[in-house]
């Protein structure tokens, strides 16, 4: 899909042919903390030429956004930014006055943020946001602005631009909103475009088209600084990649070479954590557990705490960024060491009561734990029309197996989960749990069998009573306290915490104080407390960083290994679904368009939508590896 070159748009030639448009060296950004200013970005340096794309990759909290925003002086009101060199073409960006900054922002550097629904003013028309940039930089005389806005929308492939310009952001689809946002950022023809997580909020199919759009801009000579936590997005656009961890560049080099031959342990872990094609059935995360990246006392290598190759020297002094190839540098002396191979899910950690669940499955129907047949559910939308959200969905869950449910947002996945959990009554069709009638049914009749099926929610914080500590959160699921002495209850909670890889002491802590990954582990512990036969997981990992996501997926694999629980796993991320599922259900607009064993569906996708999804999955850079 080669984008047509932009008609009649005068490209500003770089000041000196081939010279760097952006030249940064020794960039340091600090924020005032409780104990004095703490640095979030340490001694970062890079350069960017016209028509080139540098991607900065890292997990949340690594400082990648702050680095990018420092280039437009928007690192944050209280931030202190200093650098040995921070140049945009001929201009020195350190010490610009507010007026001078305003000329640079939008005029010479454009910034595109993550979610257009929040990055476009919901109360104003889409056209007005674009017009604002034109007015700020007087790109065109005032009367010509409306026409230019329509031109820009056309240029960024927004159909019916006249109509769209006069609509509000919430009336556009995700993809169109993002195009409008990019149009607004590029309206004054800036030389450089900073794209901060431009596609994270979009569905897979839409992501691809936005990345193509950016590729066109790059081809037209715009320099692009891409910020992302998702390596698969980076592979389609970036010429060079810099991997960032705890405020430092740990690896920086040409994209193809770096992704094919990752040298720094953190880069390797990121790539290994990608639930791409090869790693099915293998553990994604190294066995070092869930230590969080953080400031390393004594100035040693920041990654030492999580690095499988770490030795005493690593903790003593921070390694320098050394050249290891043409334009490829790494901040680690031990890149040549052998990388430990992935391991199979551990079966060793089994709780005392594991035998029970398998035993409870009625042998008769081939181990089918839950059967949903012909489920239908519709909702009345505000304008009085009723919309079918779930249309004739049927599937069967067998013990020890995972059913993956994939579909874009709004396809009806969560409603299926609610129906299966008995939180919503279906308009038609039924659900049978362990051979008994489960839904539709009177809640009182259903209540005794409630503990058989449990939910792992997407947002654990919302699913915990704000007043409860972790111990109470899990305790509630253990059923009425009466049947257990407080001491035994405490012991069971401790065992459950240990089961999900959390220390016993977490029982007294408040969920608010925990990290995203730790909260999800508490949610899983709570779901396991009643010893369910079925686990329904509604997008459990979509809000987590890649490395944390890897650990949680491994935890799910371990649990299924020792408990034989049946799992319905819902996600919009095909990679994750491929990794965890045995069977797969593809949903689109309330209907199941395709289902079957994962290997069969991925090998020979029959429905065009499934085919489009699989093609949308970024090619894994790593050659498939034998299990």
């Amino acid at each position, binding site marked *: 899909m080669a984008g047509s070159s932009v008609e009649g748009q005068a490209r500003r030639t770089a000041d000196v042919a081939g010279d760097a448009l952006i030249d940064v060296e020794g960039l340091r950004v600090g924020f005032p903390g409780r104990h004095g200013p703490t640095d979030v970005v340490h001694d970062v340096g890079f350069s960017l030429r016209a028509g080139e794309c540098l991607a900065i990759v890292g997990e949340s909290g690594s400082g990648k956004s702050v680095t990018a925003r420092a280039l*437009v002086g*928007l690192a944050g009101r209280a931030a202190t930014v200093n650098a040995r060199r921070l140049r945009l073409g001929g201009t020195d960006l350190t010490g610009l006055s*507010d007026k001078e900054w*305003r*000329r*640079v*922002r*939008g*005029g010479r550097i*454009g*910034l595109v*943020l*993550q*979610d257009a629904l*929040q*990055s*476009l*003013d*919901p*109360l*104003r028309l889409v056209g007005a*946001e674009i017009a*604002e*940039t034109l007015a*700020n*930089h007087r790109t065109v005389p005032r009367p010509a602005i409306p026409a230019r806005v329509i031109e820009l929308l056309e240029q960024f492939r927004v159909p019916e631009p006249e109509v769209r310009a006069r609509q*509000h952001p*919430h*009336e556009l689809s995700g993809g169109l909103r993002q195009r409008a*946002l990019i149009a*607004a*950022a590029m*309206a*004054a023809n800036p030389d450089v475009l900073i794209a901060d997580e431009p596609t994270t909020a979009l569905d897979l199919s839409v992501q691809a088209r936005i990345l193509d759009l950016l590729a066109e801009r790059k081809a037209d000579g715009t320099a692009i600084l891409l910020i992302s936590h998702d390596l698969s997005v980076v592979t389609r656009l970036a010429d060079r990649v810099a991997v960032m961890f705890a405020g430092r560049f740990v690896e920086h080099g040409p994209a193809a070479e770096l992704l094919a031959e990752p040298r720094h342990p953190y880069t390797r872990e990121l790539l290994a954590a990608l639930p791409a094609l090869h790693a099915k059935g293998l553990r994604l995360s190294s066995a070092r557990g869930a230590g969080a990246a953080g400031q390393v006392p004594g100035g040693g290598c920041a990654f030492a705490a999580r690095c499988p190759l770490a030795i005493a020297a690593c903790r003593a002094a921070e390694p320098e960024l050394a050249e290891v190839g043409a334009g490829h540098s790494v901040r680690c002396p031990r890149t040549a060491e052998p990388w430990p191979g992935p391991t199979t899910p551990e079966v060793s950690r089994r709780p005392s009561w594991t035998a029970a669940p398998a035993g409870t499955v009625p042998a008769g129907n081939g181990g089918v734990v839950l059967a949903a047949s012909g489920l239908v559910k519709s909702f009345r939308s*505000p*304008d009085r029309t009723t919309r079918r959200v779930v249309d004739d969905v049927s599937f069967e869950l067998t013990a020890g197996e995972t059913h993956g449910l994939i579909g874009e947002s709004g396809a009806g996945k969560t409603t299926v989960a609610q129906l299966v959990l008995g939180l919503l009554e279906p308009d038609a069709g039924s659900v049978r749990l362990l051979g008994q009638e489960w839904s539709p049914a009177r809640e009182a009749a259903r209540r005794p069998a409630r503990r058989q099926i449990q939910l792992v929610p997407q947002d654990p914080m919302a699913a915990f009573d704000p007043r409860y500590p972790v111990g109470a959160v899990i305790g509630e699921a253990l059923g009425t306290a009466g049947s257990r002495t407080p001491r035994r209850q405490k012991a069971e909670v401790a065992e459950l915490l240990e089961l999900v890889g959390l220390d016993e002491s977490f029982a007294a802590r408040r969920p608010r104080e925990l990290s995203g990954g730790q909260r999800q582990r508490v949610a899983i512990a709570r779901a396991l407390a009643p010893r369910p036969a079925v686990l329904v997981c509604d997008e459990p990992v979509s809000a987590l960083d890649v490395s944390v996501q890897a650990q949680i997926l491994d935890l799910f694999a371990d649990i299924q290994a020792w408990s034989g629980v049946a799992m319905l796993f819902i996600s919009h991320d095909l990679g994750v679904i491929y990794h965890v599922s045995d069977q797969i259900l593809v949903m689109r607009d309330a209907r199941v368009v395709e289902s079957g064993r994962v290997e069969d569906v991925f090998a020979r996708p029959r429905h065009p939508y499934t085919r489009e999804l699989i093609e949308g999955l970024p090619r894994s850079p790593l050659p498939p590896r034998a299990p």
Partner: protein
Amino acid sequence: MTGAETARWLGQRLALGLLVVLGAVTAAFVAFRFMPGNPVRVLLGAATPTQAQLNQLSAQLGYDKPAVVQFGDYLWQLLHGNLGYSYQEQQPVAELIGSQLAATVELAACALVLALGGAVLLAVATAGRWPFARAVSSFLELVAISAPSFWVGVLLLEVFSFRLRLLPAIGSSGPNALVLPAVTLALSVVGVFAQVLRAGMEQALGEPFVLSSRARGTGQTAIRLRHALPHALVPLITLTGWTLGQLLSGAVIIETVFSRQGLGRVLDTAIVGRDLPVIEGVTVVSAVAFALASIGVDWLSRTVDPRLRLVAV
């Protein structure tokens, strides 16, 4: 929302409003019956009337009929738009309230404009910048919220009217007789407006769309006016119900302090003088005003924030 939907929504809300007005009128009638003493005796005023006069007036006003019949008669008249006759003021209630309503609305409107203007100025100036000015301003707003409006009125009257003689003291004639009462009433609401506006603006300034706008080169004040202010207005609009109550309640007190005519005092004298038709008249006006205000709030918030249109009624 298409035309048909708006019409249906409006119809529903008007019906609801009518229900509220009827409820208010009934409540006032019931409350009236609880008031101690024989209303007819009170209506006859200071000189001690004879029993004959008492019976004659109660027959004339229909108080001798059972309560339900009296209320039925009143509702029947009300449906025909006749608010009845005030014995105490010797004039039709509609005429009495009409003349007084103008004074109260004039006072409330001026106070609202002053308060809104002041609040927007304060909020735009201090939202998210100049921390010292912001602290001083929010403290003054707090004092304005806390000080009783009649105390403020008394002090302003003493300083500006009696001591400095800049402004007239009594009556509600002429524009400059409106300045002091309107300022006093405005002070009782400007504090809350400013705080709601500033909080709304500071919340909006933290949103991604402001960062995008700054990244497109928009200046600080332009961002506050173009992006932050509209967002801050939405919570302010939901306050309309409270504001209406505050202005009307304040009007009663301001009218007493500045001895201005107005709806508040009419109701006060009507309650003391047991003038039922006037009490009911003021109730109807206040209930209708409230019903229209709540419809207005809904409509206004939908126009300012189109996302609300998707929310069912």
